[in-house]
């Protein structure tokens, strides 16, 4: 069997002008100067906000229909949450939807935005919204109750559309 000789590339000898290095410096500096007049890539936050797409996992919110929240306080999201951030307390009501959460709290300092609660929910009552701007001045402010978690369903159409298209096939 014939062996194949491979010739490795030998570096070319530098020309006189290249060894002088000064013309190369001048070329490099011309390039840098040209870059100064190119458009800048900085996003001037907070004047220019980033608006995420439908697949973005922001903070979890409770979907609010016109009859109230969709949530039936089954407790699945609380069980599946890896960070143990959700606390649910069920209560009974005489309306058509008999169960509702009397207490629904998410500790945003524990939430890791994984989306498991959204995946496991049988009612599609909790979804990941597009909200990423969370600022607290005290740690007590970070425990979001139902008042901060309820969002009308009209505002969550992007996420619901994404879920319908990609995740609810099974």
């Amino acid at each position, binding site marked *: 069997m014939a062996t194949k000789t491979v010739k490795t590339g030998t570096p070319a000898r530098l020309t006189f002008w290249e060894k002088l290095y000064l013309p190369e*410096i001048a070329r*490099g*500096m011309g*390039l*840098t*100067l040209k*870059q*100064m007049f*190119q*458009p*800048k*890539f*900085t996003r*001037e936050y907070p004047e220019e906000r980033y608006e995420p797409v439908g697949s973005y996992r922001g903070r979890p919110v409770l979907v609010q229909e016109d009859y109230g929240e969709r949530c039936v306080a089954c407790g699945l999201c609380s069980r599946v949450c890896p960070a143990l951030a959700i606390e649910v307390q069920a209560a009974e009501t005489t309306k058509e939807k008999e169960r509702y959460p009397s207490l629904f709290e998410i500790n945003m300092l524990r939430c890791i935005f994984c989306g498991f609660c959204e995946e496991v929910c049988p009612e599609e009552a909790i979804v990941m919204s597009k909200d990423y701007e969370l600022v607290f001045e005290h740690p007590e402010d970070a425990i979001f109750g139902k008042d901060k978690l309820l969002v009308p369903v009209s505002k969550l159409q992007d996420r619901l559309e994404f879920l319908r298209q990609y995740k609810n096939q099974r």
Partner: protein
Amino acid sequence: MSLIDVIILVVKILVVLHIFLIGAAYVVLLERKESAWIQNRVGPNRTGWRGSLQSFADVLKLVLKEDIVPSQANYAFHTLAPIISIAIAVAVWMVVPFADPFTIGGKEIVPTVAPDLNVSLLLLLALSSLGVYGITLAGWASNSKYSLLGGLRSAAQMISYELSMGLALIGMMLCVGTLNITQIVDAQAGTWLGILPRWNIFVQPLGFLIFLVAAFAETNRAPFDLAEAEPELVGGFHTEYTGLKFGLFFLAEYGNVILMSAVMSTLFFGGYHFPWVENLPFFKEHDVLRALLQFSALFIKTLFFIFFFIWVRWSIPRFRYDQLMNLGWRVMFPLALANTVITAIVVALLK
């Protein structure tokens, strides 16, 4: 020296000191903005109008930081090193001339802190050589292997390039015939054939090039900034410095940049002379206005060189230490020697 002379001297010193301090702080901002623009981003633009108050924010931050000294370090030397650096960086400004002399109220004022010294060029070189002490002392006093290495590398680099710097200046001095900086600047007034200004760069282009490279090495600026590059030695000689002491080193480095820019403009680019405008008869009468014009000319030239320093920093990769020493001793030094010899021969022949 009468009282009025002392007052004028004190005013000159205060003006130069303030120009240095505020200038150094603003060069920091200029560097951040210019390096940002080269990298397709905007620099600081939130403090003040388009970021103009950022320098004050930086200095305030450094002043308010805790002063940490390593426990086994020599406290006296640790404190002395930045003081030496900044003292030298400020002291060299006494020989830089800012404008032609002008008269106010019958009293002639020469806008240089130490005017008409016959050895001012030598003083400039000698004082900038003292800057090595600050850096070496900082490296030693930090009681850390890496700071010591960084300090020694920095010191070796600085003294290697001082040689070429001195020789380049000797070539220039042979052409002009004097060490007196005021006379060197005066020799660059006027024009040849009415068009080309009599700047020393046209007389000594190779000397200017050598001086330029040596100036980059003297100030520890890229591409010669091995001693303080982050991936190399963290901070080099100023790793163990925090707060105001670090602020002083920082200020001294940028002060050296401004100084080298001003010296380059003074010695090779005509100093404060504004080539075609300043000989108009209007300015001969109003000499205060002429002084202001000349000061702005020096300011513009210095600003261009500061821009050039920052521009080069972001364009050229860093030299490795052996490449640096090779360049200093085996390329720059023979070139500077050759430049001096050829200049001497030509000057002797033209006499």
